[in-house]
């Protein structure tokens, strides 16, 4: 059972915003994770250094937290491995095709008041809500 945690939500969100702001102010880059990670996979990409460093920072966050006694993250993944593979493929393919994910469109795009990103966020939210409705409640299925 999960409960609303508004304070940690806002504080955590503000830190995400701080990271996105610093990345733009200092390096001129957009903190879109699918773009950063996807660019890393491109053969012959010339600007791998900062991408590898950013992803390493993401991975280092839970390791740093574990030093202060927080256990390493082990999210609940009750779906079968087949479903997990399909979900991963869809998230990877879809984020590249749609030019962004929750961070690039959802946070950075909305912060820029980009109509393209606002439409993108509305669509992926609606698709995700519909998917959960079908999987959990069998609505429309």
């Amino acid at each position, binding site marked *: 059972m999960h409960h609303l945690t508004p304070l940690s939500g806002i504080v955590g969100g503000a830190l995400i915003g701080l990271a996105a702001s610093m990345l733009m102010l*200092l390096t001129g880059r957009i903190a879109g994770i699918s773009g950063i990670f996807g660019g890393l996979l491109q053969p012959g990409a010339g600007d791998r250094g900062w991408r590898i460093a950013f992803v390493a920072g993401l991975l280092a966050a839970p390791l740093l937290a574990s030093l202060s006694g927080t256990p390493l993250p082990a999210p609940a993944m009750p779906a079968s491995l087949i479903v997990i593979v399909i979900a991963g493929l869809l998230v990877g393919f879809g984020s590249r095709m749609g030019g962004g994910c929750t961070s690039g469109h959802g946070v950075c795009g909305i912060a820029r008041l980009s109509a393209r990103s606002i439409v993108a966020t509305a669509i992926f939210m609606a698709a995700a809500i519909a998917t959960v409705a079908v999987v959990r409640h069998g609505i429309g299925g």
Partner: protein
Amino acid sequence: MLLVFVSFACGLVFGIGLLISGMTDTGKVLGFLDIFGAWDATLAFVMAGAVAVTGLGFALARRRGTPVLAAKNLWPTRRDVDTPLVIGTTLFGIGWGLVGLCPGPALVNLAGLGLPVIVFVVAMAVGMLGHDAWGTRRTLMRQIEKA
């Protein structure tokens, strides 16, 4: 070298933000998306906090004009809503809704070395590579058709 260090620090702060906000917890994310169940609105607070601070930071970046460590700000230039945007974000949303993971939280969760998360990240990388290979092939085919 400084650019690499700053990028690492930004990734670290971003990851800590995801951890504190609870967005690395698939249960909390799915709880937000489950509007017909016991709805957990936390994700909306995370978005609000992130968008507010990013809005301020980006306004500062626009006023400065150029970033501290690079030649220019690489603002996204596209403004159109086209078919790939609609189809791509729909596919992304379906995948996100299936397990509650998007790219940022998936990468942070990778540190726990759980098999399901590893499988998800590998599939995500394959999906990205698959899209990029498909895109390159389509461009090539069009050039061949034109020739």
